């Protein structure tokens, strides 16, 4: 064996335990969805135009893009009469690399017709408990804290979380253009430290593709799951109003243009399908991060066989 191959062999062999847990975890996810009457789908990774997002940038592939999420195609399937679908696929995001970020990562996404975001939180909890059960895990360690997975999990609104943990309210943070910094520095480190926590009802401006709350249109029916201060999943009651969705996309396209980011086309086929999209809820969950939690890995590098740097 030559020396370079020896190093490679050593690095990969050391990951054996984690990679086996990763494989089991993915099998367990499939098992959960198949048992709950879901159809597994595959949508193209290479697409003409991703969903216009202000802060997510796609990698190009020829004159098209690699998907940043399978959201648009999956909602077109729901609109066409596939009421319960899930997909495990690669997503790609330009410029994202850190202890919890890879530019290419694995996402689980699922949609349920007839569900709202509260019901989807219940299902997300049930999924992770089922997976943890299959792996024989009752609590996870993160930053030297034991996090007990026993249901029910904590649920806290964005407004409550800011007033509890941050020096300013979520509204003030937004007005002062300091929302993300406040969230990252003050709120996130406190979320899901004893038990997993859902944080929900994001300010309307951050609703993305979520439906606004009927009784309080200042917030969108969007939630995120945090475990041990780490963001694991993001879900919505889906916006089904094509006019409003087009307006939000136009805003995002403007912001992207101001940043000199790649120009996306308006996803017209997706917008047309919204008219037949039934009330539904959808969620994306980072599989790599779930593996980090279940294996106690400190960085995302530890839970994939290869990072871009060691290719």
């Amino acid at each position, binding site marked *: 064996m030559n020396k370079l191959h020896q190093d490679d062999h050593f690095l990969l062999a050391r990951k054996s335990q984690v990679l086996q847990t990763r494989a089991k975890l993915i099998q367990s996810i499939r098992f959960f969805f198949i048992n709950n009457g879901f159809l597994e789908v595959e949508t193209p990774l290479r697409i003409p135009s991703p969903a216009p*997002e202000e802060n*997510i940038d796609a990698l190009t592939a020829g004159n098209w893009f690699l998907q940043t999420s399978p959201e648009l195609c999956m909602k077109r399937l729901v609109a066409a009469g596939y009421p319960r679908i899930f997909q495990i696929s690669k997503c790609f995001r330009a*410029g994202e*690399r850190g*202890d919890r*970020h890879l530019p290419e990562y694995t996402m689980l996404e699922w949609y349920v017709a007839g569900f709202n975001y509260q019901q989807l939180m219940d299902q997300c909890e049930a999924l992770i408990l089922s997976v943890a059960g299959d792996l024989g895990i009752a609590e996870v360690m993160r930053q030297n804290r034991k996090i007990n997975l026993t249901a029910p999990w904590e649920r806290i609104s964005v407004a409550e979380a800011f007033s509890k943990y941050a020096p300013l309210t979520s509204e003030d943070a937004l007005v002062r253009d300091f929302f*993300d910094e406040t*969230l*990252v520095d003050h709120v996130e480190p406190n979320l899901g430290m004893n038990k997993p926590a859902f944080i929900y009802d994001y300010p309307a401006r*951050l609703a993305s593709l979520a439906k606004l709350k009927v009784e309080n249109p200042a917030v969108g029916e969007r939630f995120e799951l945090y475990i041990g201060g780490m963001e694991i999943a993001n879900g919505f009651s889906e916006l089904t109003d094509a006019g409003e969705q087009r307006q939000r996309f136009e805003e995002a396209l403007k912001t992207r243009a101001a940043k000199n980011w790649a120009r996306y086309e308006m996803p017209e086929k997706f917008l047309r399908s919204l008219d037949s999209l039934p009330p539904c809820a959808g969620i994306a969950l980072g599989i790599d991060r779930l593996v980090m939690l279940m294996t106690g890995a400190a960085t995302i590098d530890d839970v994939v066989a290869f990072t871009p740097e060691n290719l």
Partner: protein
Amino acid sequence: MYTASDLRKGLRLKIDGEPYVITEFNFVKPGKGQALYRTKLKNMINGNQYERSFRSVDTFEPADLREKTMQYLYKEGDKYCFMDNENYEQVYLTEDQVGDAVNFMTDNIEVEILLFEDRPIGISLPNFVELVVTEAEPWAKGDTAAGSTKPVKVQTGYTIQVPTFVTEGEKIRIDTRTGEYLTRVKG
């Protein structure tokens, strides 16, 4: 000019007119939110540390830092005087700026002086120096236990743990990065 994506541990930046080194770095990004580059920064003049997050649109000036070989001349009050070997100009550093290096500085030793915009702000020593032991307890012949040590004083006044067989007047080699004894030097 650096952009936020150039930030990494060890990078030296000029912020508000002063040189900083990044001592910790991480990329964070809340799901739908913007990318944030979290850093811990150390002021290279006063040593103060603080945390700061940057956005991807932020840009940074590199800190104009360079090292120059100079000779240590003498201490005057609480200032240390060094001479530039090229132009014989003299520069001064405070006790704080010299720090632990004082333990290993003998007269006329050559050191690297760190300059920020031509202003001296710090010092780096050669990795190894040789110093004479000026005070040591005599070696008790019976003491042969492997690995046992004793404290001795060297010519700079620094006290160091050495093997028991080292005697007064001997020259020893010291690693300035750890402050630890390496070997005796013949001569």
